[in-house]
């Protein structure tokens, strides 16, 4: 009971978020103009931050192997192109990806805990997590129980995250808040703190499976949360916007936001990732454009 009260008091004691203000700030940052050398550096950094993702019922070993190969060498024609941050797949696909990525430095992320709804008993979620880790995943993307969060059962959500974190062992835990279902920025800030207090290594916006995925203002609120959390506790937590980020222009807006909100320390694939699939090819296309001066057609970039 006391724990519940403390958690509630802490989360509701956080400063509020003014919707109009946070959206105006995000829109203002989005007007930054990133050109020439700055753009080239941003594109390479964004490629290194991509969690190249496929989360479809139709995924097969062949499909995910191809994706893993692409993660290692996104642009077969240009060896100076960096590899992506990670490949992200369902637990059943982890073994096939692990074979390809072994020893490469590209991380292997798997969604677990009854992704995307999270509507399963805790023991199922934990088994899901342990299986993914055992099969070779070194990063786990879990979903929180949004229903429990919205019902104010913060202790329930907290304990689930703690349990999953334990099941992860050495694997990094990314906690998906599914911000599109949390409805308010105040909830996003509270859920961010809840996840961090429970041990999250990363906080992630979305599953990509509900209509509203990552947005700039939501990510801004989460960046402010990790900044404030580190100032308070000394522990740094990463941020991963996911879903709906499709273009280089979008990705650069996020990098600008990191730059001017939390700074250098998060401008690194260890602390910031993009959960995306089609983004990578647009980054590659823009990268080629910067080096060659012209756009190449889509057939010059590999299918995922």
């Amino acid at each position: 009971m006391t724990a519940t009260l403390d958690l509630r008091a802490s989360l509701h004691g956080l400063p509020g978020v003014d919707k109009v203000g946070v959206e105006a700030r995000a829109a203002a940052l989005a007007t930054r103009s990133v050109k020439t050398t700055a753009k080239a550096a941003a594109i390479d950094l964004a490629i290194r931050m991509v969690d190249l993702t496929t989360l479809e019922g139709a995924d097969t070993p062949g499909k995910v192997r191809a994706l893993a190969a692409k993660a290692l060498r996104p642009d077969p024609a240009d060896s100076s192109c960096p590899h992506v941050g990670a490949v992200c797949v369902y637990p059943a696909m982890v073994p096939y990806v692990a074979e390809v990525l072994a020893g490469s430095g590209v991380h292997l992320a798997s969604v677990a805990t009854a992704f995307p709804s999270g509507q399963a008993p805790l023991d199922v979620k934990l088994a899901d997590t342990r299986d993914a880790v055992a099969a070779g995943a070194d990063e786990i993307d879990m979903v929180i129980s949004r229903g429990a969060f919205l019902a104010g059962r913060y202790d329930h959500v907290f304990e689930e995250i703690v349990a999953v974190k334990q099941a992860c062992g050495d694997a990094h835990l990314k906690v998906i808040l599914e911000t599109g279902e949390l409805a308010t920025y105040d909830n996003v800030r509270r859920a961010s703190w809840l996840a961090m207090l429970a041990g999250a290594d990363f906080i992630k916006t979305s599953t990509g499976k509900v209509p509203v995925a990552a947005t700039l203002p939501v990510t801004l609120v989460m960046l402010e949360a990790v900044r404030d959390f580190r100032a308070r506790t000394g522990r740094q937590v990463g941020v991963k916007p996911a879903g709906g980020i499709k273009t280089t222009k979008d990705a650069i807006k996020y990098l600008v936001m990191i730059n001017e909100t939390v700074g250098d320390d998060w401008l690194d694939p260890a602390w910031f990732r993009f959960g995306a699939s089609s983004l990578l090819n647009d980054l590659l296309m823009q990268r080629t454009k910067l080096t060659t001066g012209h756009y190449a057609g889509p057939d010059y970039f590999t299918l995922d």
Partner: protein
Amino acid sequence: MFEYAPAPESRSVVDIAPSYGLFINGTFEAPGSTGGVFKTVNPATEEVLAEVSAAGPEDVDRAVAAARSAFGPWSALPGAERAKYLFRIARIIQERSRELAVLESLDNGKPIKESRDVDLPLVAAHFFYYAGWADKLEYAGFGENPRPIGVAAQVIPWNFPLLMLAWKIAPALATGNTVVLKPAETTPLSALFFADICRQADLPPGVVNIITGAGETGRTLVEHPGVDKVAFTGSTEVGRQIARSVAGTGKRLTLELGGKAANIVFDDAPIDQAVEGIVNGIFFNQGHVCCAGSRLLVQESAYDEVMESLKRRMATLRLGDPLDKNTDIGAINSAEQLERIRVLTDAGSQEGPERWSPPCELPAQGFWFAPTIFTGVTQAHRIAREEIFGPVLSVLTFRTPAEAIEKANNTPYGLSAGIWSEKGSLILAVADKLRAGVIWANTFNKFDPTSPFGGYKESGYGREGGRHGLEAYLG
């Protein structure tokens, strides 16, 4: 740090002539006039942009006479006809907005992102808004048959040259008055470009006359016996002189003068957005804003958190080339204004408050001042009382809402104020007791043509904008 490469807006979109004459009765006169000429410079580089004519008494006579003879036919036009001209002007401003934004940044020193995203859209919006009123004046609540006053003498400042022109000219024309407008000496160019827009819109000659010059020209204009109405935006000192000279003449007068606005942050405020509001309140347009939130009042229980966030945020402000799209803080408008900021901030340092600026490299050429805050300021310090009109914030603290209200009101000015709190009832209670013309809640420096603007006490009288703004131009 992720460095942004320079991203300058192209200067070639604007074509500035080497010299300009006065715009009287629908034509540009030959450069040079009885008052001589003066140069206008780019404050970011000190480069001369153009030579401009200083209107002497005979020029003012001619301008007022042109406005007088245009008044009869212009005021006799049906409102819907006047509206057509205003709509046309508004559309031309939108079409030429990129050119005008670059021009404004060149002559004024303000960042292109502000002239492009704030000034120009508001200028066009103002003309659109008052165009809409022109045929509805009898329903505006000023009597059945409201009449224009006559010839309006309008003198505007250098901080928002084109926007202040719009605030003055749009309501005057919508109501059927004719105008003689004098832009500030350091920023005459956009008004001269506006004169060209009036020609482009086929506005009848004499309805708008633009005369350039310094204070002396302005004095001659407002004291001219042929003028029926005076509208001035600028310093309280000059406003007082104008009020004195207009007294007893029967001329109508509106004044929009200085300010020393309190931006009040309660401990339950949305802190991150409040910090944005503080930054926007005082560093927007280099603090050259009469309604700038130049006094920050922070509740003591939130002081450390707010100041830490504010300093961190200020360190990300980008000062430099006004034409670079990533510049947040541009140049100070003139050497004279820079000197005034220096005198007041030096006084601030000597009187005891602690001064702080983020690491910030100032360009070698031009007029620049780093964003600065003073902490430990009390009501007794000069920097808490006098308008600095620069990127300088004085930080004071309070303990209770009553103390915040008392301190906020303890100023000779009363133009604007800001309140930051997540508690609606507190916002309403405090706003009710603040003596300021504009009060923003959980935002700052938001403008809209539908919203009246004006001050209490030494911040002036009369309102501009909105339905209220019509009153100043109706007899």
